[in-house]
């Protein structure tokens, strides 16, 4: 994009600024637009699960404009602030939540080079920033001057801090398998057929994926772990006192986080932008075969990742409308007595598996060894391919290949 | 008494201003960042932390001051360790700086947990977090 803008004759700094702006707006749209779609989807899914129809009229068929109408209603709603609330913190809280949710998207790749900013500690960054969302909730709970909100905030604080431990352990397993914390490389490692996904790498990864799902649901506060907003106990928890736009920011942050953890699961365990069947490769598309082919490959990757992430979100909705809520002590027990030990054992198991059976369950099955080592796409976007291929150390997968693709960045000066 | 304290402080402040002049003599937006920039931030954080520790009477406020001090020190470690900020030919701490900073972060987490537990115990016994009231030896 930058090259394209520069090609138009724009000065470099303008091109860069526009490119950055476009990326930011696109990401913002992923959250805002995603929230609209997901809220509608949640209403429809909840309705169908509950033998209802859900929204049917707004926007013609299927009520597809329902969440937009809701948004307009929220905009027009009176913005209340309780007496005795800490004004600054009360106003700030929703945006803190939203910003954390938004910032984490920066490092999430949507296709192999569609990423806001490729970071070499991408996994870590996403998990860390996601953990900051809790501050918005805590501030909201404290600033609302409501006891229910305070309860919600304390629950959230305890829950999120606890669940970061097993979540971190789960996330480390794909990192270990890929030998890097860079999300793009992790995704690329799973190229090929479905069997090369880390989910099917070995039994331990398969189990730890489900631990990850549990922890992810807990860390984004969805049922059955939605203790912070448990409506039957805490009225509405931390957002009891919020209305209108501020409340909708919390909502967007929640849906953004859901999408984020689902996307992270997709990249870490479910092959990222690599479909179950390498359609592009079978059709002979690759970056090498021309510019339009490169676009097709990217679009396919985008569709794959979006599809997987959406499936993850729908899975969370399905759970939410099926299960009762856990109690706070049970949530903690689940984390500390089940998730953490299981994650630790699975981590150790995956480690030994990697040490002794490094090929995974399906070594080389549908995944030509040569391609994996070189990357199944040659350097895209005019960037030269890897400068110095690693020496062949076929004993390990971790002998990573040199990836030189960075999202918006040019090559680093050396 | 006050004057005695103030006089060296005044002198020191003046000296500081003079010392920082070279930093602002150049356009900060164009000048590449060096170690000293980080040291400046580190110093401010460190000082703020010390001030917090002396000023606050809330036990948790003091805890926050400690965190600030640790972070000020951390910034220095990172700055010295960073080959990126290193001036041409200047020595760096290399990886050691980052490792020390890492340990500081880990130990700060431990320290915060223990301090919080102590504070809560103190709160249980005294029904306050005002450390000025913690003047009896027997809890």
């Amino acid at each position, binding site marked *: 994009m930058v090259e394209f803008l520069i090609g138009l004759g724009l000065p470099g700094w303008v091109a860069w600024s526009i490119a950055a702006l476009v990326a930011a707006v696109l990401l913002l749209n992923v959250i805002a637009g995603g929230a609209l779609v997901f809220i509608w989807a949640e209403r429809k899914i*909840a309705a169908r*699960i*509950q*033998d*209802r129809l859900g929204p049917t009229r707004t926007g013609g068929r299927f009520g597809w404009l329902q969440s937009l109408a809701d948004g307009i209603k929220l905009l027009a709603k009176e913005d209340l602030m309780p007496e005795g609330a800490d004004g600054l913190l009360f106003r700030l809280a929703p945006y803190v939540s939203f910003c954390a949710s938004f910032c984490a998207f920066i490092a999430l790749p949507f296709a192999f080079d569609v990423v806001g900013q490729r970071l070499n500690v991408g996994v870590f960054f996403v998990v860390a920033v996601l953990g900051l969302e809790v501050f918005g909730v805590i501030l909201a709970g404290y600033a609302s001057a409501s*006891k*229910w909100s305070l*309860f919600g905030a*304390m*629950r959230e604080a305890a829950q999120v801090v606890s669940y970061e431990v097993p979540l971190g352990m789960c996330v480390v397993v794909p990192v270990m398998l890929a030998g890097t914390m860079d999300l793009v490389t992790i995704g690329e490692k799973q190229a090929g057929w479905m069997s090369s996904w880390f989910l099917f790498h070995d039994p331990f990864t398969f189990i730890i994926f489900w631990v990850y799902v549990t922890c992810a649901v807990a860390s984004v506060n969805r*049922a*059955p772990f*939605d*203790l912070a907003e*448990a*409506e*039957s*106990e*805490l*009225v509405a928890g931390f957002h009891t006192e919020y209305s209108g736009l501020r409340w909708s920011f919390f909502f967007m942050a929640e849906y953004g986080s859901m999408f984020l953890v689902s996307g992270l699961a997709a990249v870490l365990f479910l092959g990222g932008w690599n479909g179950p069947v390498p359609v592009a490769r079978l059709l002979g598309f690759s970056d090498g075969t021309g510019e339009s082919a490169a676009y097709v490959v990217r679009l396919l990757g985008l569709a794959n990742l979006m599809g997987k992430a959406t499936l993850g979100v729908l899975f969370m909705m399905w759970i939410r*409308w*099926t*299960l*009762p*809520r*856990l*109690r*706070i*002590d*049970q949530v903690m027990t689940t984390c500390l007595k089940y998730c953490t030990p299981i994650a630790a054992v699975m981590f150790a198991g995956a480690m030994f598996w990697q040490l002794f059976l490094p090929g995974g369950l399906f070594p080389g099955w549908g995944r030509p060894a040569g391609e994996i080592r070189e990357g199944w796409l040659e350097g895209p976007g005019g960037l030269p391919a890897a400068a110095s291929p690693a020496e062949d150390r076929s004993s390990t997968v971790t002998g990573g290949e040199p990836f030189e693709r960075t999202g918006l960045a040019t090559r680093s000066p050396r | 008494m006050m004057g005695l304290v103030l006089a060296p402080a005044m002198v020191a402040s003046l000296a500081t201003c003079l010392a920082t002049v070279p930093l602002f003599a150049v356009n900060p937006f164009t000048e590449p960042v060096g170690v000293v920039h980080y040291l400046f931030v580190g110093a401010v954080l460190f000082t703020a932390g010390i001030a917090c520790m002396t000023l606050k009477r809330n036990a948790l406020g003091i805890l926050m001051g400690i965190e600030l001090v640790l972070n000020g020190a951390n910034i220095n470690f990172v700055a010295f360790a960073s080959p990126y900020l290193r001036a041409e030919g200047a020595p760096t701490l290399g990886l050691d700086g980052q490792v020390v900073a890492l340990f500081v972060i880990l130990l700060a987490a431990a320290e915060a947990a223990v301090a919080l537990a102590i504070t*809560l*115990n103190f*709160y*249980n016994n005294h029904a306050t977090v005002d450390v000025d009231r913690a003047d009896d030896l027997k809890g």
Partner: protein
Amino acid sequence: MPDLIEDDPRIIEFDVRTDEMLVNMGPQHPSTHGVLRLVLRTDGEIVSETEPHIGYLHRCAEKIGENLTPRQWIPYTDRLDYLAAMNMNLGWALTVEKLMRHEVGEKARHLRVLIAELNRISSHLVGMGAYGLDLGTFSPFLYAFRERERILDLFEEACGARLTYSYITVGGATADLPPGWLQRCEAFLDQFEPIIKEYHALLTTNAIFVKRTAGIGVLSRAMAIDYGCSGPVLRGSGVDQDLRRDGESLYTGMYDGYAFEVAVQKEGRYPRDHSYPTVPSEAVLGDCWHRFFVRMLEVVQSMDLVRQAIDRYAACPEPLPEPLKLFEKLPVGDAYLETEAPKGQMGFYVVGNGTSIPWRVRARSSSFSNLSVTHELCRGCLIADVPAIVGSLDIVMGEIDR
């Protein structure tokens, strides 16, 4: 709020004591089943003291009853337990009939059983669904309402109303069932029977549900009796008492010839437990799970009774008797009768003084006594347990506040 006794041994002490908070749960709270206000004294998440405050729905129905004839007061009984209005009508009608020494015919008797048991199903459905809601799952609520809707449709056909029926009245019922009603009722039962398995899957046997309810709010049988608890709350504590079998003969006579088993755990077993989910190992007799399970069993039991009643009702050739006149004179004297309503034992007391208007009317509601045990059950539990416990008592504020 009475002052807490400082060294009350029943209060659990923690090493880390944090701020004690007084929290109002209700009267505008999503899970207090109406306008109930619970004042919780909490230490963090732990509730050290619960004090129910009631009366937000008080309308002095008893005073109103002193100015109306018994048949005129029937609509007011609808509003006591508005989820089981038929049973309220029945209780009052039977009490007045007891005072007047009036006997309704066979046909009216079977009609009453039929209608009352059908209403018991719908009441328990609401109780079950709302309990799911209390525990944070929304779907069972609508599943329950879907089936309740069909019962309400049947009631609407019979009496024109969907909530406050005023159908059973002194001396019989206001109208006979419309033609084809019995077939539709049977069709409903046939369709409803397999659905109960869904409820068991969604709630009764759900691991999270069991975790949330088993061992929570254990009500010992002694305490249940001491607090005058009744209905599923009492039976959930293992007390084998069901007024349909053990009540006054005037009332048990209504169920004469009907076969049913009281839903109570005896010797560690529920009746017919071979075909229903087994009791989870964590569950303690008298806890929330057992109270809930008794209700679920009673749904089946009532279905059975409805089927029996349909047969018997259809076998009665004579027409339904006309109800008593609106201004029928009441004899001098008093009568008290308790009936087994879905929520528990609903007692009515009427004092007649020779006029058509009773001198005194009294409604003893089961939820009133059942709720009064809350502060015992909620002592030392977590905040999340409070809705679970209050929900398991299945209260209706209409009959508590009267």
